Structures are given as structure tokens and as C-alpha cells.
């Protein structure tokens, strides 16, 4: 179980990126963080990954407080971030340094088969397409068998077809070890395709606006009515999250006007 307790992040320049985030994610659950730009989704993910320090609050994984990068937490970034001087298979094996050569080899081989890039094992990242590179990045995170996998809009730079096929690759890998997944996205379709629960965030400062369970059976039929209505529900929640933002200054102005009147 991944627990975020009263999590806040204020940057050195005073920007409040996150304020009082409380969220717990069950083991094996796929949670999607969704929200407009600047609502602190990526910041939240970087805090869980241990790449940034929290200003207040705690992150717990099965009771253990996380401070800094943890072996049980893997992350896939928005860009593939493959090391260009390593071949595809060496890139996948990057986090397996502590294992024996044989174990490393079997894991990498299996991962390559899973993502369908076995014949590209010895090529350089520069020879791969963007979608293939991102598949390698996902495999690199999966081979270490993390308990928690963080995905930071990993599909946002890809075209719709590639994205759909990557969703399947991701679910295929997830099925094997069923890690807890926190997926940041701004794509409602993507959230409904992948997640068990959508967490809608709100900007300035970043906070959780609403949580919507997505209980559709897998594999999900993207043309079906339940899918459509789920998408609509998330969109409505997103709309509300932005509307309250617009309403606040309005209310503030009313109060000021009232003060003047009296």
C-alpha cells in the first residue's frame, strides 16, 4: 500500500506546487492522476520517486517512510531517457547491476519478448522510433520488479495508434507482477483505458479535487457505452475542478464589494 499523508511541496522561490495531498493506493491498483497543466502532477510523481524532497508530510510504502529513491519504486519519464551509449538490451539491464549475469540475461530476454523488440536487442537507441524507445524505457522500469511503478505522461509525445499499442504493452507487463501503478496523464481516454481510479487534481496550489472509481471490466472495450460514460464522468469532474478556480476570484470580488457597501 502506497500512502501519501499531508504531502506539500513549496519550491525555493515560494511557489506552492502541492498542498496537503492525501492519497492511498492499494497494492496492484492502477491510479491515474489527471488535471490541467501546472496542477503539480509531475511534482507529486517526482516526490514519490524520491527525486525531489517533500516540504511537509510523508510518503509511506507498506509502512516504510520513503525518503529518496527506493529499490521498490520505478519510474518512466515523459521522454524515454535511454542512455544513448548502451544498446537496447544494456539499457533494459541498467537497473539490474546487483543480479548475476544469468538472471540478468533471462529477465532482459523476457522483457524484450514482452515488448516485442527481441530482434532489436543489440541496436542503439538512436535506431529506434519514439514509440519503441518508450517501450524500452517501460521495460527498463519493469525488469527490476518494482512494487510501485510511476508513469509520468509516458505516452504524451506519441501518435494515437502507437499510444494504443503501448497501452496494451503496459497492461501486458502489468499483468505479470501486478505492481501498484501511479500514472500521470492529461488524456482522459488514457486514464479510463488504464486506471482503476482517476484522481482529478486542481492547480494553484496543486491539490486533489475529486476521486472517481473506474470499475469497468478488463480488457476494456473503448467503443462501449460504459467506457463512454466513464470518460464523460471524468471530463465533468475536470470541468468542475477548473470552474471552481474561476469562481473563487469572483466570490472574492463580491466580498470586497460587500465590504465597501457597508
Amino acid at each position, binding site marked *: 500500500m502506497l500512502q501519501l499523508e499531508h504531502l506539500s511541496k513549496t519550491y525555493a522561490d515560494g511557489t506552492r506546487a502541492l498542498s496537503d495531498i492525501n492519497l492511498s493506493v492499494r497494492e496492484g491498483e492502477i491510479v491515474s492522476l489527471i488535471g490541467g497543466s501546472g496542477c503539480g502532477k509531475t511534482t507529486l510523481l517526482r516526490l514519490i*520517486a*524520491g*527525486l525531489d524532497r517533500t516540504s511537509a508530510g510523508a510518503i509511506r510504502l507498506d509502512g516504510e517512510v520513503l525518503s*529518496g*529513491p527506493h*529499490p521498490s519504486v*520505478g*519510474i518512466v*519519464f515523459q*521522454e524515454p*531517457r535511454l*542512455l*544513448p*551509449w*548502451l544498446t537496447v538490451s544494456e539499457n533494459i539491464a*541498467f*537497473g539490474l*547491476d546487483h543480479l548475476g549475469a544469468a538472471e540478468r540475461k533471462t529477465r532482459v530476454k523476457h522483457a524484450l519478448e514482452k515488448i516485442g523488440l527481441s530482434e532489436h536487442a543489440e*541496436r*542503439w537507441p*538512436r*535506431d529506434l522510433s519514439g514509440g519503441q524507445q518508450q517501450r524500452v524505457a517501460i521495460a527498463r522500469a519493469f525488469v*527490476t520488479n518494482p512494487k510501485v511503478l510511476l508513469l509520468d505522461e509516458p505516452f504524451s509525445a506519441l501518435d494515437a495508434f502507437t499510444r494504443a499499442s503501448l497501452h496494451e504493452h503496459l497492461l501486458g507487463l502489468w499483468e505479470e507482477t501486478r505492481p501498484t501503478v501511479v500514472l500521470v496523464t492529461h488524456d482522459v481516454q488514457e486514464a479510463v483505458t488504464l486506471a482503476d481510479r482517476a484522481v482529478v487534481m486542481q492547480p494553484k496550489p496543486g491539490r486533489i479535487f475529486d476521486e472517481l472509481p473506474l470499475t469497468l471490466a478488463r480488457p476494456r472495450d473503448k467503443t462501449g457505452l460504459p467506457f463512454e460514460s466513464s470518460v464523460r464522468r471524468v471530463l465533468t469532474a475536470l470541468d468542475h475542478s477548473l470552474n471552481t478556480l474561476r469562481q473563487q476570484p469572483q466570490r472574492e470580488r463580491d466580498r470586497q464589494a460587500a465590504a465597501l457597501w457597508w
Partner: protein
Amino acid sequence: MSGQATSHAWSSQQGAAALAAPSPAEKRRAFDWRILLGFLLPVAVALLWEAAVRFGLAQGRLVPPPSHIAATLWALAETGELWAHAWATLWRVATGFVLGAAAGIVFGALSGASGTVRHVLDPTLQALRAIPSIAWVPLFILWLGIFEASKVALIAVGVFFPVYLGIAGAILSVDRKLVEVGHVFRLSRIKLAKRILLPAVLPEAVIALRSGLGLGFMFVVAAEFMGASEGLGYLLVDGQQMGKPDQILAAIIAFALLGKVADSLLVALTKPLVRWQDTVRERL
């Protein structure tokens, strides 16, 4: 013919493979063609000048025709003089380059890796860099004598600065995003340096070493001008004093060949380290 063959390969299943690895024969042909293009201009100029002198249009006393220069080169090579001079020059450049590059790599790495070291070291080194290196010559001669040591020291100083700047700059400009990948996998500082920083700076390090080597050849001439009894620089001075332009030009040609060979050697030696690079400037 080959164009048709390629277009067949494109439409076939192996199209992508053909793109990644053109057949060796094809590669060689393209390579040859460009080399020939490079020879076009100098050969044309040489032939024109040769003809001008032969037909009495020019005197060719101060600017000897190519045949004359070739004859001088040949004579120097035959007596073994050329090799002795080239060897002396090469030894000086190599020693100075190794010393200067080693120091440049060490100081550059320290300065790039640690902010404190950079704040202590960099201002002084930048100030020293502003001194024209030739200005050190009198001091080096006083300190190290007029023989090899002062020459090697001058070359080492010339090589040091581009290597230092290149390495320090390369480390500072390593992509933060790749470093974060190292953090995510909890690499220690040493492993981070070995597995991410070192490979990431290699391409720029190679360029720094190449410009260092180029400067090494520049400074060896200056060093040999300041008093030497052998070396290609000595041949230059001797040619001037004896009024032998053909010898000067022969020495210049020898310098050009030697510099090019040394640079190609450096590129060939470092090529395996940077073959993963995704650039078009590979052949420059």
C-alpha cells in the same frame, strides 16, 4: 544499377535493415568518391603552377613548382634527414600532448565535478589562459634550459587549456535528465560518474583532445623556432636563413601530413568509444 537494387531493398521486408546497415561495398564507393573530390582543388592548383613555371610564365624561384618541392622532399627522405626531423617533432608533440592532456583531463574533471574546486581553480586557470602561451617562452628557457624540457613544457601548456575547458564544460553540460536516471537506480557517486557522466562526456572529450592536438602542432613550431637543431620547425628556420623556399614548403607539407595522420589516428582510436553517437559530423 545500384539505385535500382536499393529501391528493391526498400520495398522488401528487409527495407529497415538496409537503412541501418548499407552493404560494405556501397559504403566504400561513396567514401572513395568524396576523397577524390577533396583532391581536386589542390591538384588543379599544383598543375596550373607547374605549367606556368614550365612555360616560362612565372619564375618559380621564390614559389618553387610542385615538381621541385617533391624533389626536395624526396632528397630529404632519401638521406634520412626528413625522418629524423619528423621524428624529433613528433616526439615533442606526443610528450607535450600526453602531459598537457593528462593535466587537462584531471583538472577539467575536478573542476566540472565539484563546485568548490571550480570556484578555487577556475578563475586562476582562466587568468593564465588569457596569457598568450608564447609569452611563457623566455621563462621556460630560463627555468628549463634551451633543450627538450622547455619545448615540451610549452606544448603541454598549449594542449592543456583546450582540454581543460572542453572536459569541464562537457561535465557541466551533461543532461540532468540522464543523471536522474542514475539517481532513480540509486547509483553511488562513483558509479554515477562511471556509468553516466563518463560516457556522456566522451564525445566532447574527444573533440577537446583533437583541438588540443592541433594546438600541440602549432606550439611545436613556435618551440622549434626558439632554437632547435632538429625538427620540422628547424627545417623551416633553416630554409629561411639559407634562402631555400623549397625546403620550407617541403617542411610545411610534412607538417600537414603529420598533423592529419596524428588527428586521424586519434579519431580512429577514440571511434569505438563514441560510435553510438547520433550525429552527422562523424566524418568531420
